[in-house]
């Protein structure tokens, strides 16, 4: 049986998820209703949801449906439930102007009205970010570092060289191949003159100063 006495001694309070009504109204319960309202927008001193949601969204105007209003820019939901910018005196004057003839609005007024309601245009939502350049660049830098490491560390220590690259091994290999007469048509046996026991002149392209000595010894042996 599990012993639960130690836990019973310390009584921890059980965590209860606060319901939305409690969290939102407790902030304004002690304060009267007029503290949150700012009469900066004529005719907008009060709008539904101003008191309840001001700790969540600030002084932004609610203009759409939605239980908890939030702002997003998206092509699938182009008109969110709240405006983007907060209420200001300058914006209040613009709203008064907006109630009149729209032909009297200047282009700047129209743009500020748009940016007051929306953060970015839908074209800006569609615009590419250019992130692929960063991805390719970072990968190129990492690959360069790896190439550097392999070329410097991988080839520095002679311990990491394979033994089949050394001249002794290659000479013994060629001796074996010539004795076996492998590749007589297009390969090594075709470059060796068996009657005179020496390599034909075309073999010189495969030799360096070091290997040519061993070739001489080979031809002398045969």
């Amino acid at each position, binding site marked *: 049986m599990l012993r639960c006495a130690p836990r019973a001694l310390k009584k921890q309070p059980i965590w209860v998820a606060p319901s939305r009504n409690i969290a939102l109204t407790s902030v304004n319960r002690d304060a009267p209703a007029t503290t949150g309202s700012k009469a900066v927008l004529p005719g907008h001193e009060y709008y539904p949801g101003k008191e309840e949601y001001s700790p969540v969204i600030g002084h932004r105007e609610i*203009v*759409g*449906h939605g239980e908890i209003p939030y702002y997003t820019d998206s*092509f*699938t*939901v*182009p*008109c969110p*439930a709240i405006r983007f910018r907060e209420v200001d005196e300058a914006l209040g004057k613009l*709203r008064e102007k*907006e*109630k009149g*003839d*729209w*032909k*009297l*609005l200047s*282009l700047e007024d*129209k*743009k500020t*009205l*748009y940016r*007051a*309601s*929306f*953060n*970015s*245009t*839908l*074209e*800006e939502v*569609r*615009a590419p*970010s250019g*992130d692929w350049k960063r991805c390719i660049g970072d990968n190129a830098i990492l690959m360069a570092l790896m190439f550097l490491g392999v070329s410097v560390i991988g080839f520095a220590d002679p311990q990491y060289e394979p033994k089949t690259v050394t001249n002794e091994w290659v000479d013994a290999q060629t001796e074996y191949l010539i004795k076996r007469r492998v590749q007589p048509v297009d390969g090594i046996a075709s470059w060796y003159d068996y009657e005179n026991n020496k390599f034909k002149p075309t073999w010189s392209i495969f030799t360096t100063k070091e290997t040519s000595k061993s070739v001489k010894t080979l031809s002398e042996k045969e």
Partner: protein
Amino acid sequence: MFKAAAAGLRPYSETGPRPHTSLYPVVSEGTWLEKNNYAQFDGWELRQLINFVAADDGVPEPEIIIEVLKGCRNNNDYALATRFLEVVRLKGGNKMSETWPYIMQEIGPTMQELGISTLKEMGYEEPELWLENVDDM
């Protein structure tokens, strides 16, 4: 719209009833547009309508666009009108170059009447400002 008929398209108004049509006082007889008087819509319901248009698979007809713009005028909301025009333009998708000039041709007079400037004049056919991506901060 002869081009549309040839391509097998049909007008948006003939696609059928929509959820918002049953929520409002409607005229019992009349065309679909007369039943749904978008020009008298509230700002809240206009936004619902525009969100529905964005989700629906089709470009709205000029008559509907005109009614929505008049609704924006009645609600004194200029930003909503430009947003709606952007949505209509982008609903064309790959055929934006064919649908958008036609729609601008049809709604040009009403836009001049109401005083709404076109997207090209506002400069919103291309991105204006650059917004940093949250993932890159």
